[in-house]
């Protein structure tokens, strides 16, 4: 156990620096989101490919399959829902059939209801509410390994032009991504943990890495204030890298200052 460098009365010991960093991230994000000018954001190939892939499906007359993961309401799922909203909008505008397999865990029931509302809303906003069909959002199962063959079955029967798999997909992601590849579909995926991401990088045409998925909603909206929030992520990444380098130097010269600071 590392001795904290300082403690604050009222704050829980060991969480002071964490508290300050979270407050700072809030302040920075709100400040940058209030700025009018659009910041430079590096391209994210997997997100840029979504529009092309949906266009390809439209031209081929094939459906688009898009899922938001198996998890409950967590940040991966929320990011996945943002992407689903964007894909639903594109599909509604281009009269492309969208299939959204749902389920996969006992926490997924509640997310499904939000997803149905989201897709229905996208069709309504595009003025194509008659094209929305809840049957294209089947609830496959609350069991992960019953959901998997259900999903794979949809891919084999419907032969989609594009498969977009976001949110928290776990070990079933490989089965789905490989089958998507086998049926000739463009496969865009997002991994939610390191080993899964590495496997998906092998199986998919495009894969979202690390924080690219949580940033997807902001990136796809093209809204300057939302794009600005991505800049805050980059600033914080530099802070993290800086702290790591300082910590490395400090440890090598025999000082545990950085370690104690972070443990405060």
């Amino acid at each position, binding site marked *: 156990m590392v001795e904290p460098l300082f403690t604050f009365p*009222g*704050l*829980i010991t060991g*969480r002071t620096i964490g508290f300050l960093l*979270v407050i700072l*991230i809030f302040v920075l*994000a*709100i400040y940058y*989101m209030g700025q009018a000018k659009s910041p430079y954001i590096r391209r994210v190939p997997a997100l840029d490919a979504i529009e092309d892939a949906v266009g390809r499906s439209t031209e081929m007359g094939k459906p688009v399959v898009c899922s938001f993961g198996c998890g*409950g*309401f967590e*940040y991966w799922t*929320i990011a996945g*829902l*943002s992407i*689903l*909203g*964007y894909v639903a*909008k594109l599909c509604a505008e281009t009269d492309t059939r969208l299939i959204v397999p749902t389920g996969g865990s006992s926490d997924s*029931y*509640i997310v*499904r*209801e*939000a*997803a149905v*509302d*989201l897709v229905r*809303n*996208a069709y309504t*906003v595009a003025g194509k509410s008659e094209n929305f069909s809840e*049957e294209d959002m089947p*609830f496959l199962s*609350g069991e*992960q*390994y*019953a959901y998997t063959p259900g999903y794979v079955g949809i891919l084999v029967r419907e032969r989609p032009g594009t498969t977009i798999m976001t949110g928290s997909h776990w070990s*079933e992601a*490989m*089965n789905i991504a*490989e089958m998507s590849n086998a049926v000739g579909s463009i496969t865009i995926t997002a991994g939610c943990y390191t080993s899964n991401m590495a*496997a998906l*990088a092998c*199986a998919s045409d495009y894969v979202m890495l*690390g*924080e690219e*998925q*949580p*940033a997807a*909603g*902001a990136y796809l*909206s093209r*809204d300057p*204030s*939302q794009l600005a*929030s991505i800049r*805050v*992520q980059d600033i*914080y*990444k530099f802070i*993290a890298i800086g702290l790591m380098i300082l910590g490395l130097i400090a440890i090598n010269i025999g000082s545990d200052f950085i370690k104690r600071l972070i443990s405060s």
Partner: protein
Amino acid sequence: MATFFKSRSVQLSILGLFFLIVFVPYFINIPQLEWLTTKLMIIAAVTNAFTIAIAVYSQWKRSGRFIREKRRGWAYHIYLLLLMAFMVFNGIVLGQDSTGYQWLLQAVVTPLSSVIYGILAFYMASAGARAFRARSPHAALLLIAGFVVLLYQAPLTGAFFPGFEPAADYLTKTFGMSVSRMFSISVCIGAIVLGVRMLTGKEVAFLGFGEE
């Protein structure tokens, strides 16, 4: 009333309030709020349990429509509904310890799940065979690293080629570990910024609202 609770501003206000209830006690020592956080977690779990009933109902409705209209695969939906009814009856009426429920779980659900998990190995192998081709120096390096770590995981390699262990250990504990931690850090930062966007009403997809 339903319209009131479905409005974006009300939902965002509730989100902001509940965020504070969960966020503040994590950092600041307020025992009363800790109690409230625990209660909130229980309410969330109970709400989630209720949605299972909605899912069963929506599945029943969907399958019923398939059967009535004799659509492709309608016979499978009869099978699904029968199994669902059987499982619900065994689980609720006879209890989760009943022989019928346990048999369904141990003799049907678990083996089938294991099969699906098992075939993952073949999918991994086919994806690996496609991706691990030494087309460039980078890809060759990845291939060699992958080969070393893969062989290290095989039980017989350790017995015949002890040299693999330190190499694989080095690759896993240096490059593998650093990438994993970088991934965790970047995802954490991304998640916090996503939280800010949600609280400021910029990200509303999770509430079922799209772009308007």
